[in-house]
């Protein structure tokens, strides 16, 4: 399933940092983008994968990984139009996307840790995996910088 968005729906400038809910447990609003339903469908598909979904002993995708992936997409809606979501053989989620001239992956681990890595297509630039324990400001800065400077 693809989540391509028309260019006219893409933000023209960087998105401000994600603002957490005013109260713990308060539901975040989902973007009113036509493709958000496709994201939810894809996350539901990943959530429904049984143990051994890859015929090689992979565990089910963890609820934490799915939650962090959803938070990430809510924090940076342009990713919805850029990325594909895949199950990770470790029980996490892989988001693979091209931004600018960079081919990038965000890997959300089974425990909700994040890593971003990738390479410059046709170039020599490489971004080696670096772990982030949680989706905090430091991770978001790395995400914004990778393939940047601005989300388009």
């Amino acid at each position, binding site marked *: 399933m693809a989540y391509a968005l028309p260019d006219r729906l893409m933000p023209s400038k960087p998105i401000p940092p994600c603002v957490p809910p005013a109260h713990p447990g308060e539901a975040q609003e989902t973007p009113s983008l036509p493709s958000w339903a496709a994201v939810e469908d894809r996350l539901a598909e990943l959530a429904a994968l049984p143990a051994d979904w890859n015929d090689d002993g992979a565990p089910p995708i963890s609820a934490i990984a799915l939650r962090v992936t959803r938070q990430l997409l809510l924090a940076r809606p342009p990713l919805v139009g850029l990325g594909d979501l895949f199950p*990770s053989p470790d029980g996490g989620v892989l988001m693979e996307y091209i931004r600018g001239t960079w081919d990038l992956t965000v890997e959300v681990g089974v425990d909700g840790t994040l890593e971003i890595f990738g390479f410059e297509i046709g170039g020599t630039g490489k971004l080696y995996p670096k772990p982030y324990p949680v989706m905090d400001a430091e991770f978001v800065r790395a995400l914004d910088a990778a393939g940047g400077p601005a989300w388009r």
Partner: protein
Amino acid sequence: MAMSLSNAEELLFRQIHPSGLNAGCPCSSCFMPSKSDNGQLSVDRSSITTAEGAHERYTRAGRRSAAVFGLSVAEFLACGIPCFEDPTHDHPTLPDNPAHALADFSAHGLSSRRMVAKELKRLAITRGRLFGVS
């Protein structure tokens, strides 16, 4: 000792599990050995079989594949991955497969493997799907 594949232009077919395919594009993890693979990625040699033939043999053994993508020996080598012939015959768990070969990731750590897998995926997508189940 396994013989390395010397024809740089030879294509090596990689089976893509249905879970690793989204909108027709494979995930980079499909181009990286799993934990049970001991650092060796299974592929099939185009000098011995076709993409369709490799898929047929693979799925006849009860395994699932939604598509076949391919990389040349040279492309693997450019990513630091040597390839070796590894025909299977009378193996206790594997079907006979004279075209079977291995792409050896053992010189790479996990971080490097993930980077290599991404580059291999990009090259494979550029070449395009060689066989697929509609």
